């Protein structure tokens, strides 16, 4: 019953999306009111069908309907209800179905929001979205088939991957990642529409930027959640390993960040239009490359699901999208004529340009390092991996350079700066930077790059805070308002601007925290018997006992470690080894004690409750907690930047209705 229903819904979604794409393109070429109406209807239909298909799968998962192949593959009667629910994205076919749902929501929301605006662009944009939607529907109807019928259904299934049950972060990481990845479809469609129309006007850059910002926030959070999960679960003590699939999520983030900045230049000066469109299109293509990396099995990675016909299908789509994008850009990029000139002297304009080039350089560095092992293997048949040294060596100078631009850029005025302006803008921040660097030296920082990061971080922090407060001080002076009133007014009036500085504050905090945590940590590996102690830095650890803990879905052995710092007891930590019913290797769970200055991190290598011994990895990681805090700040800043546009959107809908009614054909 459910298999047939599910397959029918997917097929109808495929028809709706392909039909909508066709009607959309036709309407773009020859605009008509009825064409746009039907494009919209088909977009909403596609979204509704994807939603229903996901509901059908959830129903099958919760009722343990093992006649649905996906449920037979990942379902189990013995797991808790919440595990059954999130099993939707625990494995390959289900996660593509979930992908379809996210896409439906995005397409419907973007169509609805622009239903009576940007009439020359929107049919093209919706057509591109629905074309992408048609591809994913095809993937679900053909190669992936989550709703395939199991002829003789088993009584019970194996349950989802144990990693999913091991930590809640594994449950929330995929939805964030998909919301980031899939959301990039919307700006991609808008950029393609601008190229097809041959115009990227001041009015159209706003929706482009906002629909880029929303998935950017999700992607930022997803990347860090992935790192956090690795840190809390994998037990090697780090949060980022330059694994191909980590890189896969980082690459589109880099180009999207670059595009968010160049879009400001489009909005403000009418320049870098083609460049911005290229970055937005590149971002989408990198999300598809990332999807291919995770789904094809080409990359040997802890994240890769399995091999399947899905890999080749995505590769065909990726190749087609790449080539069509190059063709589109080649033919149309010159139609997006600049309305101004780029200031090349010391100015904020130039800082934007340098920032963009650094991000693109970073993208190519990571892309090359990720793909290089494949090149070697194809050419010489040798398996190799590009290790962390390559990525670390190249990303550290780029990260430091970005700190520099983040400090200098906002300190410079738009247009060319005079040397007088330069001096007064840079002097105080330089002093703050020097003070932070001296503080670091006092706290035993000796690594040159870390010192430089502290100096530039302090410099950029000063600039960020003073730029954030600049409108407040101006209001206090000119309106005679008190600080709080001026603060509130300034935020309300210049919310996007302040929000950008909130994001910057988070970003520079993150870079400094990453620099400090990766150079200032200490670690040791040790074998302990019950009752024995060891110390690392100010901490003393005593191994009290090894205990067995039995839960319905797993058996754990955990070590009770009593912790003191400078002789003061801090309680006990319980790193553990968990054995899941259907998993052959046990999965360790490290115990982390987080504080604002540093983390104490305990991970078990081996543990034997019978002989009372434990092999431990002990790390003291400074400032790691600040990476998570910094991410929250960045996400908050991103949301603050979106709020005025939502308000603005609502206001402008009511304002433009009479205009749209008077001139339904738009500018044609």
């Amino acid at each position, binding site marked *: 019953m459910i298999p047939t229903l599910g397959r029918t819904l997917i097929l109808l979604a495929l028809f709706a999306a392909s039909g909508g794409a066709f009607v959309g393109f036709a309407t773009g070429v020859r605009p008509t009111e009825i064409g746009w109406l039907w494009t919209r209807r088909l977009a909403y239909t596609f979204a509704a069908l994807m939603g229903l298909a996901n509901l059908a799968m959830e129903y099958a998962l919760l009722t343990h309907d093992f006649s649905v192949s996906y449920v037979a593959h990942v379902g189990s009667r013995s797991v808790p209800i919440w595990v059954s629910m999130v099993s939707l994205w625990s494995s390959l076919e289900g996660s593509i179905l979930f992908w379809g749902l996210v896409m439906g929501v995005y397409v419907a929301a973007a169509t609805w929001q622009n239903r009576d605006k940007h009439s020359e662009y929107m049919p093209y944009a919706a057509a591109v979205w629905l074309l992408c939607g048609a591809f994913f529907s095809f993937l679900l109807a053909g190669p992936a088939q989550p709703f395939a019928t199991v002829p003789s259904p088993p009584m019970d299934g194996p349950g989802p991957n144990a990693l999913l049950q091991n930590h809640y972060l594994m449950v929330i990481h995929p939805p964030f990642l998909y919301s980031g990845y899939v959301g990039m479809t919307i700006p991609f469609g808008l950029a393609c529409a601008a190229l097809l129309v041959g115009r990227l006007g001041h009015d159209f850059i706003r929706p482009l930027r906002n629909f880029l910002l929303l998935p950017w926030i999700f992607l930022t959070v997803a990347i860090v959640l992935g790192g956090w999960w690795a840190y809390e679960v994998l037990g090697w003590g780090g949060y980022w390993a330059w694994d191909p699939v980590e890189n896969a999520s980082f690459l589109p983030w880099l180009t999207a960040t670059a595009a968010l900045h160049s879009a400001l230049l489009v909005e403000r000066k009418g320049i870098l239009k083609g460049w911005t469109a290229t970055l937005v299109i590149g971002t989408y293509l990198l999300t598809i490359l990332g999807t291919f990396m995770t789904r094809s099995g080409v990359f040997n990675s802890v994240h890769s699901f399995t091999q399947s016909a899905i890999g080749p299908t995505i590769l065909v789509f990726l190749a087609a999208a790449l080539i069509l994008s*190059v063709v589109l850009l080649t033919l149309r990029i010159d139609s997006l004529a600049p309305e101004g000139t780029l200031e090349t002297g010391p100015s904020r304009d130039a800082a934007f340009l340098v920032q963009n080039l650094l991000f693109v350089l970073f993208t190519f560095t990571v892309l090359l390092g990720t793909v290089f092992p494949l090149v070697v293997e194809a050419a010489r048949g040798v398996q190799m991996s590009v290790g962390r040294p390559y990525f670390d060596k190249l990303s550290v100078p780029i990260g430091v350079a970005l700190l520099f631009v983040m400090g200098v850029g906002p300190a410079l005025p738009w247009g060319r700066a005079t040397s007088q302006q330069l001096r007064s803008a840079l002097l105080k921040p330089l002093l703050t930077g020097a003070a932070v660097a001296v503080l670091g030296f006092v706290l035993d920082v000796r690594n040159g790059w870390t010192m430089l990061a502290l100096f530039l971080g302090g410099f950029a922090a000063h600039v960020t805070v003073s730029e954030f407060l600049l409108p407040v001080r101006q209001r206090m002076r000119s309106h005679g308002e008190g600080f709080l009133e001026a603060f509130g007014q300034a935020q309300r009036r210049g919310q996007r601007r302040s929000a950008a500085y909130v994001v910057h504050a988070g970003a520079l905090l993150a870079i400094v925290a990453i620099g400090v945590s990766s150079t200032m940590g200490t670690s040791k590996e040790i074998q302990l018997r019950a009752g024995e102690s060891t110390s690392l830095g100010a901490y003393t650890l005593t191994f009290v006992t090894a205990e067995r803990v039995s839960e319905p879905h797993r058996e754990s052995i955990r070590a009770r470690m009593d912790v003191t710092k400078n002789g003061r007891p801090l309680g006990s930590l319980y790193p553990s080894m968990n054995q899941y019913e259907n998993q*052959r290797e046990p999965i360790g769970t490290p115990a982390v004690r987080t504080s604002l200055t540093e983390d104490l991190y305990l991970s078990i290598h081996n543990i034997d409750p019978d002989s009372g011994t434990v092999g431990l990895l002990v790390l003291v990681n400074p400032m790691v907690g600040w990476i998570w805090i910094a991410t929250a700040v960045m996400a908050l800043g991103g949301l603050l930047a979106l709020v005025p546009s939502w308000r603005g959107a609502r206001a402008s809908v009511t304002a433009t209705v009479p205009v749209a009614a008077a001139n339904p054909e738009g500018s044609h």
Partner: protein
Amino acid sequence: MNPWVLAVGLAVVVPLVAVLVLNLGRDPRSVRSPLIGRPAPPFSLTPVGGGAPVSLESLGGRPAVINFWATWCVPCFEEHAALTAAARTFREVQFLGIVYEDEEAATRAFLAERGSSYPSLLDPEGRMAIAYGVFGVPETFFIDGTGRIVEKYVGSLDRGTIATLIARAKGGAP
């Protein structure tokens, strides 16, 4: 039309797609062990249920499929039927199971329940597993008629993969 965009675009896109296509056919589970191309390490182990020890020499120049497995491993369970069927099909190839870190009683019960068409050998101290560099189970080695290791496969095998890898061990096309 902008020729620069075309040139740069193609310079990035064409090599990228080419590399991905070239790597697509690769099975990441077919691992390049340093043992490949080398003579298989010798062994002499007793079969489950007793009997004369089986050794590398006793294969007498026949190609062999050596499958490390255990009853506690779910993928081993999944591939068991495929291996049993393949051993019946490819009679010119000697199939051997090597029990990896498991109890003889559990193994005997498993084989009695699911049946088997080839002997499984006990490796109580794990010496053979160490000699073959086994990380975990299932891992399967394909050995040609001259006693050299031709392929190592990590993970659950299906019939098609077994046939392909046997063809390679026999030195012919699949």
